[in-house]
C-alpha cells in the first residue's frame, strides 16, 4: 500500500543561510523544555541540531525514504533546515508555526489525490528508532483511523494515519493528540531506542549513546584509528591528541596541542584553539573555541555555552573565548591525518601537553610528596 511521511521539523528558523543548518541558540529563559532557539523568541527543536553531520530530522527523512515511502514532506518554518538531498523531499514553510497543521491537512489531501492511503505524521521531537513496517502492520490490523506511536513513557508525537479518514474528521483531529480524541486509539508501543531530546543533556546522551553503539546512529567520515572519526576536509594538527571515541566534523580545524576526548563531537566548520581541551562536549557547527581553554561537560553553539553539570547557559561575546565562524563558501579538501601516515610524524616536537598540565602537576607535588 502507498505510504507517505509528513515531518514537522521543529520551530521557525529565520535569517539563516540556505543550505546551512539551523543556528541553534540556547534559550536563556531557563525553560529547559524549550531548550534551543534561533533567537530569543523562536525555539528550535534539538532534532534539528546536527549530530555527526546530520540532524535527527535529516536522519528521519532518510529512514522514511529507506522504508520505501512514496513521498516525504517536511514542514519547516523557514529555509533554515537543510537537506543533503532535496529532490525527493517536499518542503513547506508556513508563515506562522501555528499554521503548520493546516499545511499537514493540505499535504494529506495531495497524498490522497496521488493514491496514498496511509501517512506517518511526526512532530520532531524525539529521536526514536521505530520499526516502521511493524507499526504499519499494527495500524492496519487494528483498523483504526489513527495509530499513535508510544514508548514506555507515553506519546512520541508520531502517528500513523489513514489519510481519507483523517481528512473526513473535523479540523480538531489535527494534531492527533491522544487527549483530543474521545475514544483513544490503541498505540503502537516501541521497544527500540528512544531519546526524547528535551534537554541539551539528552542531546549529549544521544552523542554518547551513538559512540557507544547503543543506538543506530554512527559517526560519519573516516575512522582514522579505532574510535576516532574524521570527516572530509577536517584538519588536525599533528600534535593535537584525539582520544577515542571522538568525532571531528567536515572542515573543522583542531590546532596544535589541543585535546579532543571523552565522546566529544566537533561538528562541521568548528575551530579548536591551540592547547584547548574538549572533553565530554559537543561543539555545534561554526563554533570557535579559543586557545588554552577547558571545555568539559558542555554543549557549545557559537556564542552560547551550556554547562551540563551546572545546568546553566552562558552567552559569551568574547571572541578570544568562544565565538562563531562564518559559513565557508567553498569546500576545501585538506590534509586528514591517517593512522600510520608518514606525514603525521612531527619533524619538530612542539607539544604543549606538559605545559598544559604543569599547574596540576605542581599541585600534585605539593600534595603528595611521594606516596599515595
Amino acid at each position: 500500500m502507498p505510504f507517505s511521511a509528513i515531518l514537522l521539523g521543529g520551530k521557525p528558523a529565520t535569517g539563516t543561510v540556505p543550505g546551512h543548518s539551523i543556528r541553534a541558540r540556547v534559550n536563556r529563559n531557563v525553560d529547559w523544555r524549550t531548550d534551543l532557539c534561533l533567537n530569543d523568541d523562536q525555539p528550535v527543536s534539538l532534532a534539528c541540531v546536527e549530530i555527526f553531520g546530520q540532524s535527527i530530522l535529516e536522519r528521519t527523512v532518510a529512514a522514511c525514504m529507506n522504508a520505501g515511502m512514496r513521498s516525504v514532506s517536511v514542514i519547516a518554518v523557514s529555509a533554515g533546515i537543510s537537506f543533503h538531498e532535496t529532490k525527493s523531499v517536499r518542503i513547506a514553510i508556513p508563515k506562522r508555526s501555528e499554521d503548520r497543521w493546516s499545511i499537514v491537512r493540505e499535504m494529506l489531501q495531495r497524498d490522497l489525490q496521488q493514491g496514498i492511503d496511509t501517512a506517518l505524521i511526526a512532530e520532531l521531537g524525539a529521536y526514536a528508532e521505530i520499526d516502521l513496517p511493524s507499526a504499519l502492520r499494527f495500524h492496519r490490523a487494528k483498523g483504526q483511523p489513527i495509530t499513535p506511536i508510544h514508548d514506555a513513557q507515553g506519546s512520541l508525537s508520531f502517528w500513523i494515519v489513514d489519510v481519507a479518514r483523517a481528512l473526513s474528521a473535523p479540523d480538531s483531529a489535527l494534531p492527533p493528540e491522544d487527549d483530543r480524541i474521545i475514544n483513544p486509539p490503541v498505540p503502537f508501543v516501541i521497544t527500540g531506542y528512544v531519546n526524547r531530546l528535551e534537554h541539551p543533556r539528552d542531546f549529549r546522551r544521544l552523542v554518547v549513546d551513538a559512540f557507544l553503539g547503543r543506538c543506530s546512529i554512527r559517526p560519519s567520515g573516516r575512522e582514522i584509528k579505532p574510535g576516532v572519526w574524521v570527516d572530509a576536509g577536517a584538519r588536525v594538527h599533528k600534535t593535537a591528541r584525539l582520544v577515542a571515541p571522538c568525532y571531528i566534523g567536515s572542515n573543522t580545524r583542531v590546532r596544535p596541542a589541543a585535546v579532543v576526548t571523552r565522546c566529544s563531537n566537533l561538528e562541521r566548520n568548528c575551530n579548536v584553539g591551540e592547547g584547548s581541551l574538549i572533553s565530554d562536549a559537543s561543539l555545534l557547527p561554526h563554533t570557535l573555541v579559543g586557545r588554552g581553554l577547558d571545555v568539559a561537560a558542555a554543549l557549545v553553539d557559537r556564542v552560547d555555552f551550556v554547562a551540563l553539570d551546572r545546568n546553566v547557559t552562558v552567552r559569551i561575546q568574547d571572541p578570544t573565548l568562544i565565538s562563531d565562524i562564518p559559513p565557508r563558501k567553498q569546500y576545501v579538501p585538506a590534509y586528514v591525518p591517517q593512522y600510520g601516515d608518514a606525514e603525521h610524524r612531527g619533524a619538530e616536537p612542539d607539544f604543549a601537553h606538559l605545559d598544559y598540565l604543569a599547574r596540576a602537576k605542581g599541585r600534585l607535588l605539593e600534595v603528595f610528596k611521594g606516596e599515595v
Partner: protein
Amino acid sequence: MTTGKPVVVKLLPETVSAQQSQAFYREVEPVLEADRPRLVFDFSAVRHFDSAGVELLLRCMEEAMKRNGDVKLASISPQLAVILEMTRVDRLFEIFENSYDAVESFHRFSPATMQSLTPSWKSADSGS
C-alpha cells in the same frame, strides 16, 4: 576498523616515583623509538604513584605521538584514578579495565571495555 601492528604490554613497577620512572623510561625507550609504537601500560602492580609517574606517562605519550603511535593504560586502581583525574591526565588516555582489552583496542573500537566514559554530568541529571 582493524589494524594489525603488534602491541607491547609493559607492567609498571609497584612504585613509580622519580627514580623508578627514569629506569622504566629507559626500559620502554627502544619500543617508543620504533615506528608507530603501540604500548599498553599495565598498572595492576602499582601501589605508589606520584608526579614523576604523571610526567612519565606524558613523556611516553608524546614520544609515541611523534612516531604516530599511542600509549594506552590498563588496570588503573581507584586510588590511581584519583591522581589521574586531579592532574587531568585521564582525559589524555584511553583507559581500560585490563591489558587484554587495551591491546584489543588497538585493533578495533570496543567502547564497552573502556573506563571513564560515564558522562560527568550524569549524576546531575534531573531524570529527563
